[in-house]
């Protein structure tokens, strides 16, 4: 899978409460959630994000609540891939389970800046910064998780195995 987009850059410990505040969790409609994505951290995010854009952040991205609404909102807002130094573990599972591509890469997370244009080859784990003309290598997923991603999420993976 390939992705290419402009970068939104944030710091460490971006929690799921700022990705989608709980006051909007009275719905689980992804498009409705996307309207409020990131608003407590970056009120202009929803206005500025374009389909395919890429989010880059520091350590422990997605910490806090287990709300799957967080990766759902990011995906519906148009984010094609999230690159972070590390992810909180529940967010990591949720992103894979709903098919929001993510990559862990400290070098990329440090070097990439807001508004850079970045290209990602998810299968190979390569991240190319077209603005700075640099390439970073992320850890590829273990085969077990690649199976889930290839099945387009956990539910499809289970459906295939139940048959």
């Amino acid at each position: 899978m390939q992705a290419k987009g402009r970068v939104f850059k944030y710091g460490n410990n971006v929690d799921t409460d700022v990705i989608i505040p709980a006051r909007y969790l009275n719905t689980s409609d992804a498009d409705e959630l996307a309207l409020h994505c990131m608003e407590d951290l970056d009120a202009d995010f929803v206005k500025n994000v374009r389909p395919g854009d890429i989010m880059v952040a520091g350590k422990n991205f997605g910490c806090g609540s287990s709300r799957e609404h967080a990766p759902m909102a990011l995906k519906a807002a148009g984010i094609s891939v999230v690159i972070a130094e590390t992810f909180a573990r529940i967010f990591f599972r949720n992103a894979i389970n709903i098919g929001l591509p993510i990559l862990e890469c400290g070098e990329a997370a440090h070097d990439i800046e807001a508004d850079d244009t970045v290209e990602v080859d998810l299968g190979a784990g390569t991240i190319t910064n077209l603005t700075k003309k640099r390439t970073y290598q992320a850890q590829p997923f273990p085969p077990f998780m690649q199976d889930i991603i290839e099945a387009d999420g956990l539910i499809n993976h289970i459906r295939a195995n139940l048959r």
Partner: protein
Amino acid sequence: MGMTMTQKILAAHAGLDSVEPGQLIEADLDMVLGNDITAPVAIREFEKIGITDVFDKAKIALVPDHFTPNKDIKAAEQSRLLRTFAAEKEIEHYFEVGQMGIEHALLPEKGLVVSGDVVIGADSHTCTYGALGAFSTGIGSTDMAAGMATGRAWFKVPSALRFELTGKPGQWVMGKDIILHIIGLVGVDGALYQSMEFSGSGIAYLSMDDRFSMANMAIEAGAKNGIFPVDDQTLAYVKEHSTKPYRVYEADADAHYEQSYTIDLSTIRPTVSFPHLPDNTRSIDEVGNVRIDQVVIGSCTNGRIEDLRMAAGILKGRKTAKHVRLIVFPATQAIYLQAVREGIAEILVEAGAAFSTPTCGPCLGGHMGILAEGERAVATTNRNFVGRMGHPKSEVYLASPAVAAASAVTGRISDPALLEGKE
């Protein structure tokens, strides 16, 4: 190589003699949990799988606790989705308003989780049941759907950090202070992907309610789970609340820990987490002058009977400061009733508290205690992120019920020992 407690429980539930950190396993589940925020998404995903029945009607718990009693029409629709699904699939452990409580206080109280279990819940504070010597961890809605369908979940076997607790905590020091202290020590990602394994002679001084509030906040250090060894107190609790068979696992003497910390409980002071991360901790002596607008006592972290007893002990014969709104919400109906019977409810209401029905409401800024711009709350809850309890420019200070009650009286963050005029 020996195994930690967590590794032993996971190995047994995966049908393996031993496991190693990093190994991917599939484990059998003893309980799958969801609430009115996370279960609606899980139900939709479950229906996509295309099977009629859940794997075991007795091993699923659905608890509408977050935006209940329903805060608005959309929340009411979400609750109805749970109710309808529970009825259709004949889920045995569905708890309607009137029977329900905050899920992580309710499940142990109802005996639905016992020592040695493997539990997943679509709520990050599912790690609470580690207090019982169970492996329990938060997952998302899709994992919950898969769990309801198959009774199994995949895990990466975690490595571990050990926290050796020694000594006896002081009079005003609660489990909450200890876990805030530990989170301050290791940081909000200090235990990322790892288990936090508590051990040591100091555990004997910690009540089950202390242990629940400590295991509850393991997630605030990024941990997969937090777990306590099973002792006489644990077994007494399990036998009082459950008829389910339990199993006691012990860490091997040669189990490997990535790091070990020794913590002398006698040196821990009442501890407060300043905005906007739980690891931003200060001892009560370093707090300074922080004027507050609201105090919230309750939640899955600190809404249990000992928490309410502590608050009532401090508030008895006193009044809440004029500029402070005090909201107390017992975590379950049983705790509520016990608080009424013990006279706690009367003490709190006379002190000026709003005494609420069980709900997660204010903790996550849902309802029943939202903060306006610039307002500050002391809360016995578990997160103080930006906007957590309301306006993005409001502030939450995390503390124990003792500090919260003392602060309600003085109107600023306060040491309960000074209020009482004794150590």
